[in-house]
């Protein structure tokens, strides 16, 4: 990946796209030859309602700097109300992430229809810039072996 950011940081993004609307929107952006940053790895899911907080947390833990969830507009979900579930999970997941010290902008929810290639390209562009501004997340790097910092434990008997 090229490094064109001012700080040399290229965001690594994961996008969960529902196959009925948003993934087709992404396809349309491609076939329309719209330009948008190559930072997001798209993952096709059956419905945005399939994405539970586990997928988001796992992506963040495993090195993503940001996660996008995109599904059909309310009323258009192929499974009728899958995206209503998404709508409920999203703010609660945000609240959880905030408690854990993550910035609000790391995770984003968008409704993108199959006809909205332009919107898809715009969302990915915006999101990439947003995460570029936030900087790398590097979640797992914060876990260090604290035992090395501990004083030598082989001291005289301590009462148990």
């Amino acid at each position, binding site marked *: 990946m090229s490094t064109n950011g001012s700080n040399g940081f290229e965001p690594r993004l994961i996008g969960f796209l529902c196959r009925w609307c948003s993934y087709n929107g992404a396809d349309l952006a491609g076939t329309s030859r719209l330009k948008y940053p190559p930072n997001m790895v798209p993952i096709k899911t059956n419905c945005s*309602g399939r994405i*539970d*907080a*586990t997928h*988001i*947390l*796992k992506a*963040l*833990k495993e090195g993503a700097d940001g996660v996008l969830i995109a599904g059909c507009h*309310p009323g258009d979900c192929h499974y009728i109300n899958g*995206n*209503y*579930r998404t*709508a*409920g*999970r*999203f*703010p*609660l*997941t*945000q*609240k*959880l992430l905030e*408690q*854990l*010290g*993550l910035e609000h902008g790391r995770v984003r929810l968008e409704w993108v229809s199959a006809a909205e290639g332009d919107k898809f390209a715009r969302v990915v562009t915006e999101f990439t810039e947003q995460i570029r501004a936030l900087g790398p997340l590097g*979640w797992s790097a*914060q*876990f260090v072996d*604290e*035992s090395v*910092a*501990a*004083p030598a*434990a*082989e*001291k*005289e*008997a*301590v*009462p*148990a």
Partner: protein
Amino acid sequence: MSKFKFAMYWAGSCGGCEIALLEIKEKIVEVDQNYEVVFWPAATDFKYKDVEGYDDGFIDVCLFNGCIRNSENEHLAKVLRAKSKVLVAFGACATMGGIPGLANVASAQEIKDLVYRDSPSIDNPDGIYPQERYEVPEGVLDLPHMYDTVKTLDQTVDVDYYVPGCAPEAGQIAAVLDVVTAALKGEGPLPPKGSTVGVSPKTCCEECKRVKEEKKITSFRRIWEFLPDPEKCLLEQGLICMGPATHAGCGARCTGVGMPCRGCYGAPDGVLDQGAKMLSTVASIVDAPTPEEIAVIAATVPDPVGTFYRFGLPSSLLRRARV
């Protein structure tokens, strides 16, 4: 025949697991027939140096409860791992981090600041904090080094079996001891290494006798706000009950007396992150006409970390708040 060697240790824990072991009542006599206690700080007067002096593998079974919160806990985890043939992570703290694991929302320094400086009831004008090393005429005193991140036992050493629960339920403890004793006597196989024992398949809801219908809620309520219907599913009454995302094994004793499940038995098989699963479940049963209204109601859950990760923050995917 000589007795098998038994050890039990508490690391970062409350002592409830020790009591839970005695909850097996007269079965403790059988334990005494089969085992000789070689280390159990709550009950016997062995010193750390006694254990450190044992040969590797000297202890047949060690029930290790409590999380790894400081250097002393870590040291004992490593010693007991080396000295034990079978090391069992016993209870919610050892398996998942437990209640002390909620400390992972802060750093060790933030916790000390709160406890020794900022708490409204503190009167500490000289700003005195506990020191890890202190020299007195008789020599040097030292305290264990407190870590920033609470760990589970298996994030520290290799673990053979897991017995979840806060505390593990007596019937389950007795069953686990029976299996281990039989295996030591050569009368039966040990369960496969790494398995969670002392649980039942499926989720807490399976064991819960309450009537379950369609889960649709329009607001969240808390247990002090009303008297829940004694028959109906607590989740359907707007109480956040962790039952759907919690391993069965406790007999659903809490929900039986009107207290929502808090999730101490951990994630059921196949669930990677108990809190994330429950959060997703809770948010998707909110019933309102528009996505916007659903979002507003879902966001009213007061403390997602404390609610969904009450016992399991250190073993969750993200493990802690950002430092």
